[in-house]
Structure formats: structure tokens, C-alpha cells
């Protein structure tokens, strides 16, 4: 045991005050858990974990497993502090009656925010357990050691007692002060190790229960009926006429309607599917959208709310005096979350209470929205989490939960609502489109002296489609750091004396329904910013990696940059110096970027077919510094996924719209990357065990988007100013030269 820990115990009389055990009813679950509405008191150790008589522990976690492995990684954190084996520890499903409120599972927060909370709670519990063991074994605490949940006297393993024997099945009834010192990193046995994920065996065998699998007795199957593809956010969808006779030939199906919200329910799922497709509804088709062709022009000329994100030095003067100036305008499209399995929810609404099962990133946030919708106090609404398919941000999980709730209320029975593919694709909270205008300048020696970024985009929409169809007026999220120009990704990693960043916020109601999509707006920012800076390196005749090294002073940014260059065996040289007349040309590019914290760098090797315009990534390299990485294998898998998803978003993905509707409604009209186009990927984790953990689920994507843009220039000598790099767009750019 470390000295710090021993001192705490000697001084720590306060810790054991009130440590009275009381009997509980169940051997596995402490009494009362699950019976009262949460959130449970975060200031109680019992809220976070329970020790069972069989010397195992249950940890209560407020973060959702979304496929990233956090349900295993957070157990590693707790097992480490408690000195338990991974086989002795488990967690339970998120439930507003059971699990603590740690906020939503977004912004890569699980390990960053959740890790420290869980770690200190486990440390506190361990101290209490040691104190009890000390009395039991009649030995001072500093002479005790713990292994696999068994406390024994140092040098006398026979004198031993297990956690289970000490408190098994009892509550701690101990305040969580957060002051118990945690284990020093040098003593780690589980954190930092490549523990395999606990959910994989069930996921490959068909035993894993996804939300889409959940069934309850007496339930009906539901489907919603909406126009195929949303119109402008502010317009919602207006019913002109519903022809109920159009589904009369499906006797099992029942039409349910409240305002503009329309659904069908049936005992048989196929009846519900058929009825939803067959029901004749006339919708108001007044044009509300600019259409794909005019989108960016409308954005650029719209009346905006402007915000200065940063303004230091004198950008204009510095640019006038600089040796080299690069300036360009860039465009990034709306992109969809498009979870692989459309969202699903099951609601059981009774007269004075409701139970909703769904795939939300935030059970407590969703509970609040549902309570408002039902006009019930939050204590009467219980939300349980079941993993769906990967969500990558705010897909339609809240909307489907609300819609299922309305259907259940109207039907008077539990309703399982499965969104169809076109519901999910067509009514998503899309990652917003973006226009970025960048100017940057360098002196003769290669130092960046000035940087300016102006960005146009709208924010996130705060009212779900269901609520809107029921009459709630559209509203926006308050403008926040992650919805405007990013001071981090727009030049923030470089030491630049003169900087000006401006956000031009568009009114969301005139555009598509926006939401946070994995690494929100960052791909667009870096595609624009890092290409502009890359152009400066080109004008200087410098190697783009060397140029970045020269202008980055922060050692952690340099760390990831060097790590990725090394992994990719970067060959120094000026970009576009090996242009050829060949039909198929190859290019290599480098870039840096992140989301809110952590450090990302990427190298892309791409191939451009100049005759067909087809671009494929051959190899993408990504490096991340996320501070202390609890499980490097999980982060490598996250990097791998981020690189492939970035390739998909840079080459394929674009939500298209007509003047009336979104027209991206399935995998044909919204293509994503396939096996034959998939790059080889290499992920590098820059492990910094002594640093605070920061996010790792989205911090390489911006860098990869930049690397792809720069690789295209290296291959062709032409800058792409708009993505995705579709054949049509590539051919047009190559023709312009």
C-alpha cells in the first residue's frame, strides 16, 4: 500500500462515521434499489457499487454502452481500485430507478467524466472494507493487503477475510466524500491492460438483447406514418387529409392520430408494417427548403447571429505584410447518423405512470422529455436503456421513445415501435452543413503569422419530431462551444500571434433538423483549416509534416504528430511534387485535429482515378493522445472505426434535399463505404498513464478528414473545396485544375 493511502487511513476517522451495516432483503441487490425513482444520491457509496456475499461486486454506471466498450473499461477502473479480478465484477443496465445520473454518454465523456467518479467511489468503499477487515483480523490497516477481494495480513496469508464475508449483501451506508486517495498509477494491474470486451461473446452468438429484440406480454407493434423525408425544421409536417378506408383490408391494424402525429398499431408486426405503407395521407407539400443545389448559397447569404470566438493581434495587418497567403472557401454537407438498425422503443403508458425502454444516450434527459410530453411528474416515468445499433450521436432515439409513448397512450397498451429505414434516414437530427472561409499567412521562414476562420452553420434542434407534430413549437439548443467555430480545430494547435475566429449562426428553422453527429462539425473545420495551412507549406516549398512541427509548440500535439508520421513512415518532401499523367495516381497527406479534448493526428494514403473520378483511401493512420487510456485495445478499435467512418463521410456521405423534402432515405440514396472501398487502417495510442483521461471516441476524425484532403492535393495538385469527394465533384475539380 502506498504511503499516501496509509496516511489517509490514519487520519481518516471521518470516513467510518456512520458506517453501520443494515440487513437487506436480497443477496444480490440491496433493498429498495429499483423501487424508487432516481437518480440515487451521488453522495452515497451505495449508489455506485454493492458487494455481494459471494465476494463479487456490482458497479452502477451512468454511461451507456454504445459499442465503444465503456461498459468493460469502466469496470476495469472499479476493479483496479477495489483489487478485484474482472471476473468478480459486473454492471447492470441503465435505469432511472437504479443507476446514477452521470449525464449523457456523449462528448466522449464515459472515461473522462465517469472514470474519476467511479474510481473515487471504489476507493472510498475499499477503505471502508479495509477498516472492517482491520477490526475482524485485529491487525492495523497498514499491515493488510488485498488480492481478488480477499483482505489478508501481510506475510500471513492464512489470516484472511473476503469482502463478501465482511459486507456481503449489506449496504455501506457511507457518505461518498470523494476524498479517499486513489491507487497510484505505478500500482495499476488492470487499468491500461488489454482486457477483452465483456459484451462480444453474446454479440456474436445472438444472445445479446438489443432494443430491437425486446418484447413484453400484451404489446402491440407500432409504426409511424410521416412524409418520406423531413422538410424544414420549422415547418414540421402538416396533415391535409387521412383516408382511413385505405387500410380497411388489414383488419388487425388500427389507426392512431393526435394532431399531425399519425401511427398504426397491430398485434401482428407485418400488419403494422403494411398498414403504415398503405395508409393514404395527404401532406402539405409547400416548399420550405433550398434544395441541394442552392443550400450553400442560401447559408452564405442568410441573416446570421455572429459571435467572435477569438480575436487577438491584428490579422489584417499581418496578412498584408506576410510573404505567403493562402485563402479559400470550403463546404461540408449535411450528414446522417443513420444507425445500422433504425431506432426502436417500447413504451407502456398507464394512467399515472409510464415505463419506456429505449436506446437513449441519456436516460435522465430522455425521462425529462417524456414526462413533459405526458404531463406527468418525472418520478412517474421510468426509462430503461437497451443498446441499439451504434448511434454516433443524436440519432432518432429520443424521437422513437416519444413516438412509442404517444402510441401506447393512445392504444392503452404497451407498444413496441420500430422505425423503418426511411423514418430514421429521413427524420434524423443531421450533422449540420457548413461553409468555412479561411485565410492564413506565413513569413519567409515558415512561421504562421496570421489565421482567420469564418464559419456558417446552424445549431442543434431542441424539439423532437414527435413533440413538434403534437404542436410544440420548434426551438434550438442554446448556442454553445461545440456548435460554432472551434477554437481548437481552427488553428488552435498552432502557435499563431494573430488570430480571428467568427461564427455566423444561421436560424435552424429554415434548415434541416440538426443534431450532434460524432465529432460535430470537426470534419468540416479541419478539411478547411488544415488544407489552407497545408497550402501555406506548399507555397513555402516545405514538407507539410515539417511545417506543422515548426508551428506547433505543445508537446502533446507534437507527440501525436510524430507518432502518426512514424507509423506511416512519412517521407519528407513538398506536396504535389510527384504529379504524373498516369490514370490512377497516389497521394499522401497529413493532418491534425480533435474534438473537445485529446489530441489527434492522421496520415492518409489515397488513390485517385483521374478518368472515373473515383477516390479510395488505401491506408489511413491515426494517432491519439487521450491521456490515461484505460484499455488501449478499445481505443485502437475506436481509431479503426473512426478512420473508416471518416473515409465514408469524406468520399460518400451527403444528405440530399429537394425543395420539399430530404431525399436520402436508405442506403441507396445515402451510400456509405463498403468492404471493397475500405482502407487498411493503423491506430496508434500515445499512452500517458499519469495524465487525466480524455475522450477517445471521436478525436481522430477531424485529422483524418484533413489528411484525406491533403492527400488529394498531393496526388493531383488540385484542392478539393467541397466534400464528399464523389466522382462527379472530383472530375469537375480536376477539369477546373
Amino acid at each position, binding site marked *: 500500500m502506498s504511503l499516501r493511502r496509509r496516511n489517509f487511513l490514519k487520519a481518516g476517522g471521518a470516513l467510518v462515521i456512520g458506517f453501520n451495516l443494515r440487513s437487506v432483503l436480497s443477496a444480490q441487490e440491496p433493498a429498495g434499489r429499483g423501487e424508487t425513482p432516481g437518480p440515487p444520491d451521488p453522495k452515497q457509496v451505495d449508489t455506485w457499487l454493492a458487494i455481494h456475499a459471494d465476494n463479487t461486486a456490482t458497479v452502477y454506471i451512468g454511461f451507456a454502452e454504445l459499442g465503444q466498450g465503456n461498459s468493460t473499461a469502466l469496470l476495469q477502473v472499479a476493479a483496479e481500485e477495489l483489487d478485484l479480478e474482472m471476473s468478480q465484477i459486473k454492471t447492470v443496465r441503465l435505469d432511472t430507478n437504479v443507476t446514477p445520473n452521470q449525464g449523457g454518454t456523449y462528448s466522449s465523456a464515459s472515461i473522462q467524466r465517469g472514470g474519476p467518479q467511479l474510481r473515487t467511489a471504489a476507493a472510498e468503499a475499499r477503505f471502508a472494507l479495509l477498516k472492517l477487515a482491520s477490526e475482524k483480523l485485529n491487525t492495523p490497516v497498514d499491515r493488510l493487503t488485498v488480492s481478488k477481494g480477499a483482505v489478508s495480513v501481510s506475510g500471513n496469508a492464512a489470516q484472511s477475510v473476503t469482502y463478501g464475508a465482511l459486507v456481503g449483501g449489506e449496504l455501506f451506508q457511507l457518505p461518498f466524500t470523494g476524498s479517499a486517495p486513489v491507487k497510484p498509477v505505478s500500482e495499476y494491474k488492470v487499468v491500461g491492460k488489454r482486457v477483452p470486451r465483456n459484451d462480444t461473446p453474446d454479440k456474436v452468438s445472438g444472445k445479446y438483447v*438489443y432494443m*430491437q429484440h425486446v418484447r413484453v406480454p400484451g404489446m402491440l407493434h407500432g409504426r409511424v406514418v410521416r412524409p418520406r423525408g423531413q422538410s424544414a425544421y420549422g415547418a414540421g409536417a402538416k396533415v391535409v387529409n387521412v383516408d382511413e378506408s385505405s387500410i380497411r383490408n388489414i383488419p388487425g391494424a388500427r389507426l392512431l392520430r393526435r394532431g399531425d402525429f399519425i401511427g398504426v398499431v397491430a398485434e401482428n408486426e407485418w400488419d403494422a408494417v403494411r398498414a403504415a405503407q398503405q395508409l393514404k395521407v395527404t401532406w402539405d407539400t409547400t416548399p420550405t427548403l433550398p434544395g441541394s443545389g442552392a443550400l450553400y448559397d442560401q447559408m452564405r447569404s442568410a441573416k446570421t447571429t455572429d459571435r467572435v470566438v477569438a480575436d487577438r493581434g491584428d490579422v489584417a495587418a499581418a496578412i498584408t505584410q506576410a510573404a505567403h497567403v493562402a485563402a479559400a472557401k470550403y463546404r461540408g454537407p449535411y450528414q446522417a447518423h443513420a444507425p445500422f438498425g433504425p431506432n426502436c422503443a417500447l413504451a407502456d403508458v398507464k394512467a399515472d405512470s409510464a415505463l419506456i425502454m429505449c436506446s437513449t444516450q441519456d436516460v435522465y434527459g430522455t425521462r425529462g422529455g417524456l414526462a413533459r410530453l405526458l404531463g406527468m411528474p418525472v418520478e412517474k416515468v421510468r426509462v430503461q436503456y437497451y443498446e441499439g445499433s451504434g448511434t454516433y450521436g443524436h440519432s432518432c432515439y429520443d424521437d422513437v421513445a416519444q413516438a412509442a409513448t404517444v402510441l401506447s397512450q393512445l392504444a392503452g397498451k404497451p407498444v413496441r415501435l420500430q422505425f423503418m429505414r426511411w423514418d430514421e434516414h429521413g427524420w434524423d437530427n443531421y450533422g449540420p452543413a457548413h461553409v468555412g472561409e479561411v485565410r492564413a499567412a506565413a513569413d519567409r521562414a515558415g512561421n504562421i503569422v496570421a489565421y482567420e476562420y469564418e464559419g456558417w452553420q446552424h445549431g442543434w434542434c431542441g424539439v423532437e419530431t414527435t413533440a413538434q407534430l403534437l404542436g410544440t413549437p420548434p426551438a434550438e439548443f442554446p448556442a454553445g462551444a461545440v456548435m460554432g467555430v472551434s477554437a481548437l480545430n481552427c488553428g488552435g494547435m498552432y502557435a499563431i500571434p494573430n488570430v480571428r475566429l467568427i461564427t455566423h449562426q444561421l436560424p435552424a428553422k429554415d434548415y434541416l433538423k440538426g443534431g450532434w453527429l460524432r465529432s460535430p462539425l470537426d470534419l468540416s473545420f479541419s478539411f478547411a483549416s488544415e488544407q489552407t495551412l497545408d497550402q501555406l507549406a506548399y507555397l513555402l516549398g516545405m514538407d507539410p509534416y515539417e511545417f506543422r512541427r515548426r508551428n506547433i509548440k505543445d508537446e502533446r500535439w507534437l507527440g501525436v504528430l510524430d507518432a502518426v508520421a512514424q507509423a506511416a513512415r512519412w517521407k519528407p518532401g513538398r506536396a504535389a511534387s510527384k504529379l504524373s499523367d498516369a490514370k490512377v495516381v497516389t497521394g499522401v497527406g497529413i493532418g491534425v485535429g480533435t474534438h473537445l479534448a485529446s489530441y489527434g493526428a492522421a496520415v492518409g494514403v489515397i488513390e485517385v482515378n483521374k478518368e472515373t473520378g473515383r477516390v479510395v483511401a488505401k491506408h489511413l493512420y491515426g494517432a491519439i493522445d487521450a491521456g490515461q487510456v484505460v484499455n488501449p485495445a478499445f481505443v485502437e478499435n475506436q481509431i479503426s*472505426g473512426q478512420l473508416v467512418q471518416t473515409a465514408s463521410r469524406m468520399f460518400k456521405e451527403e444528405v440530399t434535399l429537394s425543395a420539399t423534402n430530404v431525399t436520402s432515405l436508405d442506403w441507396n440514396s445515402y451510400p456509405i463505404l463498403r468492404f471493397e472501398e475500405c482502407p487498411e487502417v493503423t491506430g496508434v495510442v500515445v499512452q500517458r498513464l499519469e495524465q487525466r483521461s480524455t475522450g477517445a471516441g471521436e478525436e481522430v476524425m477531424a485529422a483524418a478528414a484533413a489528411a484525406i484532403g491533403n492527400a488529394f492535393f498531393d496526388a493531383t495538385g488540385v484542392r478539393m473545396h467541397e466534400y464528399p469527394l464523389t466522382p462527379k465533384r472530383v472530375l469537375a475539380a480536376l477539369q477546373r485544375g
Partner: protein
Amino acid sequence: MATQLKIRVNERQWTVAASPDTPLLYVLSNELLLQGPRFGCGLAQCGSCSVLVDGVERRSCVTPVSAVQGKSVTTLEGLPAWYAAQKKVSPPPALHPVQQAMIDEQAVQCGYCFNGMIIKASELLSKVPKPDEAQIRSAMNGHLCRCGAYPRVIKAIQRASQAMAEVTK
């Protein structure tokens, strides 16, 4: 109208009440409560609902239940036994080598697409025991993954191919 239909799923005979045009997926999910095949698009675009019908990968979301009468349907759950019967291994392993390889490669992220991935890869390896990478990519090209698990799925199929070759030796 619902009629009594006899279907063979995972080497067991079932009698289900369904209208003949009901997509097989809804019968497997709601009548047989199987969790392997799952809804993804309902349009045969993604491969989430894949099953084997007489050893051939089919999209159960667009296959009418009546079309599999007299045929043998294998889902993810029945894959180890299907493999054992093919390879004359007794008793059947707990997992098909492709399933085991997905664990060994830690290929899974959300895992929702893995039903289709495993079904399709099992079909491939039953026909082409030692596919090269281009053959794997080509065979798997109709199966989408949104998490970007493709590179590890390719590695897992290669690993499974080796493991199966060793069983045969």
C-alpha cells in the same frame, strides 16, 4: 390471412400462423423469438437480417415465409450445428469458427451488423475455404457496417479460414 405454415429452422420443424407473404424476418423474430436475424432496412440493402436457406445467404426481410417451405433455414443461433454437420464434427462446437474469430480479433463495436457478417462469412468459407483478401471483400461487399468494423472483420475471416483448415487436417 394467417395460415398454418410449416418451416424448418435450425434443424427443427415449426408450425407458425402467418400470412404467406409475411417476410421471414418477422416470423423468426416474433414467433420463434430468434435474435440473430434483425431488422436493418427491410429493403435487402444492408444484410442485417441474413440467414442461410439451404446453405445460401438470403435476406430474410424480403423473403416471404412461404418461399422457405420445404427448405432448411439456418440462423446465427444454428450456425455451430450447421457447421458441425458439414464438417462431421461431434459434438458441435459452442461457436462457429467465424464467431470465435470475431471474438479473437475483438472485431465487434456495436455488433448489430455482425449477424449478417457472420452468416455471409460462413457461407463464403463453406464454398471457398481459403479466400484471398479480394475474394473476401467481394463476397462481403453487400454487407454494410456503420461502425467501420470492416478491417477487423476481414482479419477475422482470414483467421477463421485458417482455423477451419486445421480442423479438416
